[in-house]
């Protein structure tokens, strides 16, 4: 794998769903290149094909035609087991509905990807890495909490820790703030921005413009095609906004 290759390269990629007579081109002849260290928002209405594109980027699905190169390596000829291993090593997922294992502690949830790592990760190392990942998202004090004991924002932090614990090349976030209030949304975006600052490539699906505004680049889809692809010039900074919010709160208390 050459480091010169882009993180993601799509060449005339299509994903077609065929029912008996109808043919649905969910992703239609998309070519897209995402370099290492980018922070891309994929926007579009529901049915625009952004979720299908996301599943393909996440190696959960294979394209019907065209090519998908992940760090210069084509994934078309990989079977389900090889795709699973690829997801395990290179990709971290963050979902709208958090997708944590119920009745399972935050620590064990974060350990989950390492259970499937090849080569094996020792029990002690799993524990250490999961603890560090949870500390890095500010949940060092809640290692043994189960999801039902955590707020939505905290659950999403656990999910982010789980996505980061394997040190992936690519973080895919599917509406990560869809179930959160605005303040918590800013905090979560702050976490993603911070990870992006230190070099992680992040691709995020959202339909909210003000969330997409935290990204560096915005790709808009409609009917399976990319209709707009531009650099975000009015980029918001979550860190700045949070400190402003904190200052405002402080003032409100003093007043």
């Amino acid at each position, binding site marked *: 794998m050459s480091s010169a290759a882009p993180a993601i390269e799509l060449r005339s990629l299509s994903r077609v769903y065929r029912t008996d007579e109808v043919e649905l081109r969910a992703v239609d002849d998309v070519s897209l290149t995402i370099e290492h260290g980018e922070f891309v928002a994929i926007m579009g209405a529901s049915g625009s094909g952004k979720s299908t594109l996301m599943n393909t980027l996440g190696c959960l699905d294979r394209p019907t035609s065209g090519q998908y190169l992940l760090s210069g390596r084509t994934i078309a000829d990989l079977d389900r087991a090889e795709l699973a291993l690829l997801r395990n090593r290179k990709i971290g997922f963050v979902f709208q509905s958090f997708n944590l294992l119920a009745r399972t502690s935050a620590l064990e949830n974060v350990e989950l990807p390492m259970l*499937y790592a090849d080569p094996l990760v020792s029990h002690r190392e799993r524990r250490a890495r999961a603890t560090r990942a949870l500390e890095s998202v500010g949940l060092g004090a809640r290692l043994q909490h189960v999801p039902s004991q955590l707020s939505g924002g905290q659950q999403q932090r656990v999910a982010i820790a789980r996505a980061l614990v394997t040190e992936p090349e690519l973080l895919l976030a599917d509406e990560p703030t869809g179930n959160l209030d605005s303040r918590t949304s800013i905090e979560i975006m702050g976490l993603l921005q911070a990870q992006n600052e230190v070099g992680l490539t992040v691709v995020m699906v959202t339909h909210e413009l003000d969330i997409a505004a935290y990204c560096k680049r915005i790709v808009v889809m409609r009917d399976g095609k990319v209709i707009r692809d531009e650099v975000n010039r009015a980029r918001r900074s979550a860190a700045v906004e949070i400190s402003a919010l904190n200052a405002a709160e402080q003032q409100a208390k003093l007043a």
Partner: protein
Amino acid sequence: MTPVAAKLARTWLIGAIALRALRRNKMRSALTSLGIIIGVASVVAMLAVGNGARASIQKQVAALGQNLLAVFAGSSRTGGINAGAGSASTLTIGDAEAVEREISGVIAVSPEVTRGVQAIANGRNWSTTVAGESPDYLKIRDWALATGAMFTDRDVRTAAKIAVLGSKTANELFGPLDPIGQTVRIGNIPFVITGVLASKGAGIGGQNQDDRIVVPYTTAMRRITGDTYLRSFNVQVAESTEMTDVQREIAALLRQRHQLPADRADDFNIFNQKEIADTASTITGAITLLLGAIGSISLLVGGIGIMNIMLVSVTERTREIGIRMAVGARPGIVQLQFLCEAMLLSLIGGAIGVLLGVGISRLVQAVADFTPVVSTASVVLAFGVSCAIGVFFGFYPARKAARLDPIEALRYE
């Protein structure tokens, strides 16, 4: 790490994942195991009861004596009323003596007459059975004396008034006292007691063999029954392999002595202990098989229960499976995890079932008058079958889990 060690470590890890998943759903896991617990427990307990019954019956057959043939007089018929085996007046002492004298392979013969009597001794009276026998009786029946001595051939010749008591009869008449040298009166005739038999317990028919008074057969015939005919005589054969031959020779000899024409049926019956033992063994074997089959059916039902719950579990945990696949669980590993869960359920259920089965056997032992035998083979069998059931019935749900599409699974509500 070598590839084999890595593989082992990975399997171990998957087992730990499976165990963790089962612990998350303690109630469901327990209920699923319950089917296997009941199945294994019933197989173990039923086989134990069957084997115990078989052992008990075999012991009773062996207690009849060693290589025993019993020759009974035929049934007598008076006006259409059949008085039953031993009632016809056809067997004589001469027949018994001829059998002992003329047939090779016969090592002992004991003529037998019996009669129900009222015995009086020590100021008590007791309704019991007098058995007129020869001194060989004890050897033939493989019976020992608790105390005292048996009467002798000379006592038989002189029709001596000597008695040996069964242990129960002795206890009823004398309680803790020593009956040796005491007198027991049977129909007003005094007999001197020379010995007490060891306890033998219930016979095949369930009657108490220890409730009897044994006297020389000559004395019994002359002084108690007044008969000149024998009810039966017992024959001991040297080798168990010769029993069928000896039985045939006795039949031929008796037909000749009774001058029966070829078209007349035997006027006697010969019971072969080996045949009784074989029949008993066949019957108890069939009972054991039946009990085992009933147990196996519940084990099968338990296995189907595991499959049922695992299928429900796969559906219910579709999202969990999707999450595991998304973070990199290969289909093969998901399959192995669910297979492991099914196997663990049946293994744990099997272990508890074995303990429960042993417990039930103990309980049966406490309430029934025989001892169930928990054989290692039945435990290994039940345990092995329950593991096999785990694999067999766990395979389909596990494959179903492995074939889930991660995208669909993640979307599942």
